[in-house]
């Protein structure tokens, strides 16, 4: 089977699954079920957005939270001010992408670990600044709280997860997407094959941060109250990173499987062991990077191979 066909099969499968989830609000009687699935859907979008720049273009962006935070900040203020939420979210995404393009050209002068460290610093600078400038907790106006409908948030999250999956599916086998993957594998060899690396890295960053900005906007729409700097917390970056690595970095289905597994495991572990779950995730991450750098996707391939060998 060709790579393109495999990707199409996964895209159809995942979109069918998301389509099925559209019926959940009709059957689920409890809000906690919707809240839980909402969290998975938000995580799929966030992980998939990180996957574009890190998984496909190979640029490990550790400042991803900055773009999520910018999206949340602008979308929430506009929405509370009366702008329709979808427009507010698009504005938030535009802000995140504009910021990414401004810092992108200098940031991409850094390579490998230096790019990772540089973006991490950038994210932290933004978080501290927002924490200092906006120290007050942001709470929705009473009228808005009274009209709060969870199902609206849920459907928006579902649509956004579908958008992120469609974006990555369309990208994977496209001219730009293949160029990005060539850069990830070997940037000089990509250049020698006619791939303009800087332009494609900026394209990847723009797409990635745009989606992250949308996810941030959704977060700002969902939560009744939070500290504005919370949306800039490095947790968002590292959650996205963990989910993507658990599932399989640089694949369409990796971040989806990773997000599901991560959220399910996190809820379960957090209930039982409170903060110890962080320790467990740290250990899990190290184990995955050392033993299965391809994540669950690679585990499945290995499993199939072992199985095939057993049958012969």
């Amino acid at each position, binding site marked *: 089977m060709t*790579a393109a066909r495999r990707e199409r099969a996964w895209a159809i499968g995942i979109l069918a699954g998301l389509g099925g989830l559209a019926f959940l609000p009709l059957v689920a009687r409890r809000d906690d079920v919707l809240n839980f699935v909402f969290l998975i859907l938000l995580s799929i979008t966030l992980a998939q957005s990180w996957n574009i720049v890190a998984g496909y273009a190979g640029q490990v962006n550790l400042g991803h939270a900055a773009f999520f935070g910018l999206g949340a900040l602008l979308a929430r203020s506009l929405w509370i001010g009366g702008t329709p939420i979808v427009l507010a979210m698009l504005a938030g995404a535009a802000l995140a992408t504009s910021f990414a393009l401004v810092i992108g050209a200098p940031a991409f002068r850094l390579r490998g670990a230096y790019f990772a460290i540089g973006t991490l610093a950038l994210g932290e600078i933004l978080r501290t600044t927002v924490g200092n400038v906006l120290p007050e907790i942001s709470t929705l106006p009473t009228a808005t709280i009274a009209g709060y409908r969870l199902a609206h948030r849920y459907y928006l999250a579902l649509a956004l997860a579908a958008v992120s999956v469609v974006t990555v599916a369309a990208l994977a086998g496209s001219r730009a997407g*293949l*160029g990005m*993957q060539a850069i990830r*594998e*070997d940037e*000089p*060899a*990509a250049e020698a094959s*006619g791939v303009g690396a800087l332009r494609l890295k900026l394209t990847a960053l723009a797409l990635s941060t745009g989606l992250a900005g949308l996810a941030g906007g959704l977060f700002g729409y969902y939560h009744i109250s939070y500290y504005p700097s919370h949306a800039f917390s490095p947790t968002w970056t590292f959650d996205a990173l963990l989910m993507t690595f658990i599932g399989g970095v640089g694949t369409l289905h990796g971040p989806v499987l990773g997000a599901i597994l991560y959220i399910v495991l996190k809820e379960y572990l957090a209930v039982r062991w409170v903060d110890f779950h962080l320790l467990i995730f740290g250990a899990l991450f190290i184990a995955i990077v050392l033993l299965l750098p391809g994540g669950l996707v690679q585990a499945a391939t290995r499993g199939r191979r072992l199985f095939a060998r057993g049958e012969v």
Partner: protein
Amino acid sequence: MTAPAPISNRPPTRQAGQALLLDVVGLSKRFGGVQAVKDLDFTVAEGEIVALIGPNGAGKTTAFALISGFLTSDAGRVTFAGRDLRGLAPHQVNALGLARTFQIMRPFPRLTVVRNVMIATLGRHADVAEAERRARAVLDELGLGAKADRPAGGLTLAERKRLELARALGTEPRLLLLDEVMSGLTDAETERIVELVRAINRRGIAILLIEHVMRAVMSLAQRIVVLNYGERIAEGRPESVANDPRVIEAYLGDEEVARAPA
């Protein structure tokens, strides 16, 4: 007959005389205390096969890197198809029709073989289906068609050499720079690559090759440029270069020459 300047990267109809394709003048590059390439001059004509030879460390690969835009020269000029290449990024040099391979093969291991080549063909054909069709055609030509949908990381050494060649060809070059595409291959595999290079050249693609496999150099090259310590020490037809005492000295050292029976 005066045709308008070709806009595409296809080679223009070759004239009877050999039009100059690559012109290297006074090229120099120093790394700290090492003068890797020194005042190097040479040319490649349209449709020609030229070999760049010399002992290890003579500056051949550095010369390739300078020509293809991976390194910036300290002095000198490289003109390709009438265009000064100064300041161009590698992908821009490639877009003009100058493709290179790497001595240490650099496949994109996680991508399938056909996608490796599609990355090259997409530079000329924006339509993915068309790029894939052309990539598969190149792979068939190089005998890799059966491996097209396997990950490139699983190829053997000989197959990876051919993939390297396929990727360079996929960019539809007018000049192909081949950096040791035959080293480490068996005699039969080498013979196969020699035939491939000849077939590529018959289509009008000029070739500049770095090669240590002398049998291949002698049978392919129309002209040989010999480097030693970054400088050109000889140039000419294969048979005259092979008998040039300066070349023998560079390869064997002067003691060997002195001790050799007259």
